[in-house]
C-alpha cells in the first residue's frame, strides 16, 4: 500500500514536472519562432567612445555574430561615435529615423520617450531578454517613464556618495591615515595641514569643470528631482513627503558658509569657477592635493590610471540611491528599430553571456586582453599591450552588466561584490521609483537653469558672501518660478505615493 502511494506520488510529481517542462518549452518554441524566422536582421548598436574606429572593431563584430547566431537570426553592426559629437549624432539619428536599434542613452530619456523617439520594451522584455531582466530586476523599477520602459539600466556605481579623493604621499606627510577621515570636520583638519605644509599647492580643486570646490558637499542628503527641487533623503514617508527647494535649506546654507570659510583660508584653487583644466591634469602636474568628488568602489583604480599618482579615497557623505541615479544612463531601444524582439535578444546576451560581455568590454582574447587568473575571473593586458595601444576597450559603466564578465587586474579581486554591496547598502530615496513629468513646468526650468548658472558655482566655491548670495539666489529662483515646480512635484509625488504604497 505504502509502495503504491509512493509510486503514485512519484508518477504525479513526474507528470507535473513534465507538464511544467512542456509549458516552458512551448514558450521557448514561441520565442524561437520569432527570433529564428530565417530572415537575417541587421541590428545597429551605437555608443560613445574616445576612438571611433578601434583596431579590433571588425573582429569583435564577427565574434559577437558567432555568439548571436545560435540565439537569433540577426547580425550586429557596431558603431562608436566620438564623445564630443555623440549627443548631436544620436539626436540626428533619432530625428531623421535612420537605421538605429540599440544605443547608450545618457540624457533626456523621458523627453525622448515623450517625443516618440524610443521603443517601449515593457511588454517584451521578460520574453526576449529574460536573463537581462532578472539581472537588473532590482533597478528596473526606477526606469519606467509614464509606465513605459525604454531600455535597461547599467550595472555600475548607481548609488551616489561623495568623498575626499587625494594623493597618498601628501596625506601620509600630514600624519593622517585613510581611517582618520570620516566627516567634513576631518577633511578640514587634513586640508588645513596640507595648506600649512604645501602653501604652493591647491589643497582642494573642483571635481568638475567650471564648478565650485564643494559641488558634492550635500550629496546624499537630498534627492534632486528637478531643477534643485527635491526631498530630503531622511524624509519620513508615513505622512507623505515634503518637497523642498534644496537651495533654501539649512544644509545648503551651511555648505555655503563652509565654502566661504575655506575659500577665505586659501584652501581652494582660485578661479575654480572658470577653470577649464580637468582635475586629473591638475593633479598630474603636481599642483593639487585632492578634490571632493564622487566616491565609488572603482574610484581609486580610475584615478590612478588617469593621474599616474598614488591615490586614496575616503567616503564622507551618506550613500543614497535615487531614481535618477539609476535611470540616467541606460541602453535604450530606438523607436525605429526594425525588429525589437531580436534587438532584445542581443541586449540579453550583453547582460547575461560572459563571452559576449568580455568581447564588448575588453575585445579579443589573446590580442586585446588575456586571462590572468581563470579561477578568480581576472583579465589584464597581454605582454606589450598598454591602454594607449590596445585595439578595443569600453568602460564598465557603459558595458551593460559587467559583473558577468572578467574583472580587470587593477581592480580589487572582489570588485563586483563591492559594487553590489555599494548599491545595495545605500539609503533609498523616499521617492525611489518616482519619475517626475516636467511637461507642466518647462518655462520655469529654462529660467531656473539660467539662475543656477549665475549663482551655483560661485556659492559652492565660496566666492561670495554666503548670507547675501544664497538669499539673492533664492530670490531669483522664486522669480523664475521655483515655487510652481515645488507645487507640481509635490502633487505628482503625492499621487505617486498614494498609488505605490
Amino acid at each position: 500500500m505504502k509502495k503504491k502511494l509512493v509510486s503514485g506520488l512519484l508518477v504525479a510529481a513526474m507528470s507535473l514536472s513534465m507538464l511544467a517542462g512542456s509549458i516552458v518549452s512551448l514558450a521557448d518554441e514561441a520565442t524561437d519562432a520569432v527570433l529564428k524566422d530565417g530572415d537575417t536582421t541587421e541590428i545597429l548598436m551605437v555608443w560613445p567612445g574616445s576612438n571611433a574606429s578601434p583596431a579590433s572593431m571588425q573582429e569583435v563584430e564577427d565574434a559577437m555574430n558567432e555568439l548571436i547566431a545560435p540565439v537569433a537570426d540577426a547580425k550586429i553592426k557596431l558603431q562608436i561615435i566620438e564623445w564630443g559629437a555623440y549627443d548631436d549624432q544620436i539626436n540626428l539619428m533619432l530625428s531623421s529615423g535612420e537605421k538605429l536599434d540599440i544605443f547608450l542613452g545618457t540624457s533626456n530619456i523621458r523627453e525622448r520617450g515623450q517625443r516618440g523617439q524610443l521603443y517601449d520594451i515593457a511588454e517584451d522584455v521578460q520574453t526576449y531578454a529574460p536573463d537581462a531582466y532578472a539581472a537588473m530586476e532590482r533597478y528596473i523599477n526606477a526606469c519606467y517613464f509614464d509606465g513605459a520602459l525604454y531600455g535597461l539600466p547599467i550595472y555600475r556605481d548607481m548609488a551616489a556618495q561623495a568623498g575626499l579623493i587625494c594623493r597618498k604621499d601628501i596625506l601620509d606627510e600630514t600624519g593622517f591615515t585613510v581611517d582618520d577621515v570620516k566627516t567634513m570636520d576631518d577633511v578640514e583638519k587634513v586640508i588645513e595641514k596640507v595648506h600649512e605644509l604645501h602653501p604652493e599647492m591647491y589643497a582642494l580643486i573642483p571635481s568638475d569643470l567650471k564648478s565650485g570646490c564643494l559641488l558634492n558637499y550635500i550629496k546624499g542628503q537630498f534627492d534632486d528631482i528637478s531643477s534643485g527641487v527635491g526631498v530630503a533623503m531622511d524624509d519620513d514617508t508615513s505622512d507623505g513627503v515634503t518637497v523642498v527647494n534644496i537651495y533654501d535649506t539649512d544644509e545648503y546654507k551651511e555648505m555655503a558658509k563652509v565654502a566661504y570659510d575655506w575659500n577665505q583660508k586659501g584652501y581652494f584653487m582660485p578661479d575654480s569657477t572658470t577653470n577649464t583644466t580637468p582635475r586629473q591634469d591638475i593633479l598630474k602636474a603636481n599642483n593639487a592635493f585632492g578634490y571632493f568628488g564622487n566616491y565609488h568602489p572603482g574610484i581609486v583604480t580610475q584615478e590612478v590610471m588617469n593621474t599616474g599618482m598614488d591615490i586614496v579615497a575616503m567616503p564622507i557623505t551618506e550613500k543614497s540611491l535615487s531614481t535618477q541615479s539609476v535611470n540616467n544612463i541606460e541602453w535604450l531601444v530606438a523607436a525605429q528599430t526594425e525588429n525589437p524582439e531580436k534587438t532584445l535578444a542581443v541586449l540579453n546576451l550583453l547582460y547575461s553571456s560572459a563571452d559576449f560581455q568580455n568581447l564588448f568590454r575588453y575585445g579579443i582574447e589573446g590580442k586585446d586582453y588575456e586571462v590572468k587568473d581563470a579561477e578568480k575571473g581576472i583579465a589584464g593586458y597581454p605582454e606589450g599591450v598598454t591602454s594607449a595601444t590596445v585595439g578595443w576597450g569600453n568602460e564598465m559603466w557603459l558595458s551593460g552588466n559587467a559583473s558577468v564578465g572578467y574583472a580587470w587586474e587593477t581592480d580589487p579581486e572582489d570588485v563586483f561584490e563591492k559594487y553590489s554591496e555599494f548599491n545595495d547598502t545605500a539609503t533609498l530615496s523616499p521617492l525611489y521609483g518616482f519619475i517626475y513629468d516636467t511637461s507642466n513646468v518647462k518655462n520655469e526650468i529654462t529660467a531656473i537653469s539660467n539662475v543656477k548658472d549665475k549663482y551655483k558655482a560661485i556659492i559652492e566655491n565660496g566666492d561670495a558672501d554666503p548670507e547675501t548670495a544664497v538669499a539673492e539666489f533664492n530670490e531669483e529662483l522664486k522669480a523664475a518660478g521655483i515655487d510652481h515646480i515645488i507645487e507640481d512635484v509635490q502633487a505628482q509625488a503625492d499621487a505617486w505615493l498614494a498609488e505605490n504604497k
Partner: protein
Amino acid sequence: MNSKKKKMLKRAIPLYIMVAPGFIYLLINNYIPMLGIVIAFKNLNFSKGILKSDWAGLSNFEYLFKAPDAFLITRNTILYNVAFIVVNTVVAIVIAIILSEIRSKMKVKIFQSCVLIPSLISIIIVSYLAYAFLSGRTGFINGSLAAAGKDTISFYTEPKYWPAILIFINCWKGAGYSSIIYLAAILGIDQEMYEAAEIDGATRWNKIRFITLPMLKSTVITLTLMNVGRIFYSDFGLFYQVPMNSGALINATNTIDTYVYRGLIELGDISMSSAACVYQSLVGFVLVLTANWVTKKLSSENALF
C-alpha cells in the same frame, strides 16, 4: 512673341543655366527649411511626424517672455549689437582708409593679412587668448599689474569690465573683414576726382573728408542694413565661451542665444528652441523692413529695395 524677344530669350538661356545651381542651392538650403517654422507651433512627437504632431499654439514661445530676465537678455542683445555695428563700422572704415593711403603694394598685402587673420580664428581659441590676458592667476594683465605693485583685477567675477571687453574682442575679430569690403569700395572711387581736388589745393584730410567718406555712404548703408537684420541674434561663442560661462558675469553677458542654450540644454526641447529662432527671425525681418523704410525716406537711392 516677336523675333526680337525670342532672340533675347535665347541669349539669356546660358545665363539662366549659370544661375541655376545657385538658385537650386538657395531653394534647398534656405527656402525649403522654412517649412520647419511649423515645429515652433507644435508639440513635436517623432512617432507622429512633424506634420501630424499636435498643435501647441504659442505655448512654446511663453518661456521667452515670461522669464524674469526677459528684459535683461533683450536689452543686452540689442545694445551689444548696436555697439558692435557702430564700433566695427568706424574702425573698419579707418582701417580701409589707412590701407588705401599706403602706396607700397607689398605693405598693403601684409597689413591686410594682419587685420584679416583674427576673423579666421575660432572663437574657442579667442576665448583662451582672452583668458591668457585676463586670468586672475596667470593672466598677462594681472601679472603686469602685480609686477607694478598694483592691485590685481578679478576680471571673471567683475561684470563691469565686460561690455568693453566684448566690444573690443568683437571689433578685433570682425573689423578686419568688413574693412576689406570698404577698401574695395574706396579703390573703386574714380581717381580723377582726387586729381581734380589736388589741383584745387585739397589736403589729404580734405580728400578723405569730402571725397572718400561721402562715396562710401552707400556701402555703409548696405552693410548696416544687413547687420540690422541680425540685431536680435548674438554670437553664441562670444557671449558664452569668451566669458568662460562665469556665473558672476551673467548679467552682463546673457543674451537671447545664451539664455536659450542654458535653459534648454536640460530639456532638449526642439519646439522651444525653434520658437526662439522664429522669434529672432521675425524681429530681424521687421527691423530690416523698418530700417530700409527709414533709409528710403532719407535718401531713396541708397535703400536696399
